[in-house]
């Protein structure tokens, strides 16, 4: 089987995988990083969003071999020890989650939004989240959490 090396959350990980192995399978089944979720498995719901070399992408619709040599950040790579990432903290403060299934993808997408658009309008936030579906329909507090995080970052 071919071998791939992907730097995941700063650590190079080399594994033998089948060519058909999806990136999300690589993360969950080969590395045991189950924070990245599989929701719809059809690139619509966004529960599987991770960062590839800094930009957000849907890991259920990518092959592990495609990102051989790249850097991937997952939800597990955000917190520094006990200190949550500001976006995670903002989701917590604003009750931006209910069941929590969509949350990893929501957080990863939101961080990428602020990278591209540091001061988004509410409309820009909602448009950016088009590819992240929350079946608890808790969007309102998610949008609030992202706006609050952006505001905090602007002040900092």
């Amino acid at each position, binding site marked *: 089987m*071919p071998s791939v090396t992907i730097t995941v959350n700063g650590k190079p990980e080399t594994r033998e995988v*089948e*060519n*058909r192995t*999806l990136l999300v399978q690589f993360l969950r089944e080969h590395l045991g990083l189950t924070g990245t979720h599989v929701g719809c*498995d*059809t*690139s*619509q719901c*966004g529960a599987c*969003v991770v960062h*590839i070399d800094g*930009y*957000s*992408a*849907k890991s259920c*619709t*990518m*092959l592990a*071999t*495609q990102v*051989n040599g790249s850097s991937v950040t997952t939800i597990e790579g955000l917190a520094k020890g006990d200190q949550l990432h500001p976006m995670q903290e903002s989701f917590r403060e604003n009750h931006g989650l209910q069941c929590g299934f969509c949350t990893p993808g929501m957080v990863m*997408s939101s961080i*990428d*939004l602020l990278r*591209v658009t540091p001061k988004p309008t509410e409309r820009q936030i909602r448009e*950016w989240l*088009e*590819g*992240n579906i929350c079946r608890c329909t808790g969007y309102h507090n998610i949008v609030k959490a992202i706006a609050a995080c952006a505001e905090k970052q602007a002040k900092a």
Partner: protein
Amino acid sequence: MYNFNYHQAKNVDEASKLVTSVEEGKVMAGGMTLIPTLKQRLAKPSDVIDLGKIPELKGIKKEGNAIVVGAMTRHFDVANSDVVKQSIPGLAQLAGHIGDPAVRHRGTCGGSIANSDPAADYPSSVLALNATIITNKRKIAADDFFKGLFETALEPGEIITAVSFPIPERSAYMKFPNPASRYAIVGVFVAKTGNNVRVGVTGAGACAFRQKDMEAALSKNFSADAIKDIKQSDNGLNSDIHASAEYRAHLVNVMARRAVQACG
């Protein structure tokens, strides 16, 4: 998904040779359509040839009176390109509404066009802007490119390297998206240069097509009113759980009028 051999091509020549030398080769651009197709076992290629690591296929440049988009340029880059936004705002608008941000970070211009998905956005702009498809073998005029459902003029081993979009005076794209997939139920691209108006329609038929009755009317009078009574025939249009052929025909007129208005 069935397993396959995977190749990361170093250049277009190598990709072209590989795809014709293996049992059943499939070229992969961003993979936003191919990977879901493989996952559903709707395709069983023996070999997948990935174009993802060929740098010369990426990039946007202005050449004379045209914008040339490399085949592997991502939708996100087209949507956010200053030169595209200034020269062909309709194209930036189109690229910025494909799928969602994470999909736009992977999906590519060339991949979308080569696939000729009936609901893909790009083909409408290729027709309306009278683009030229540049491949490793030749240049193909927009009107000769789309042949049918997932069918194009591309020959075995022929790979799109870039698409050259002539800069129009005005352009706009309007689509009625499927709320879940964001694919176009109907999308209409309108481009005007002098008295020449072209109207590209996607989502409605087996592949993208030009609405020539609307083009003739808009060439004489470029206003939404000029086409309000032009009915798109529903004969041969797509009909599925999302929309009937009759509804799609109706949407062609609505989206065309909105696109004309958006041209300003």
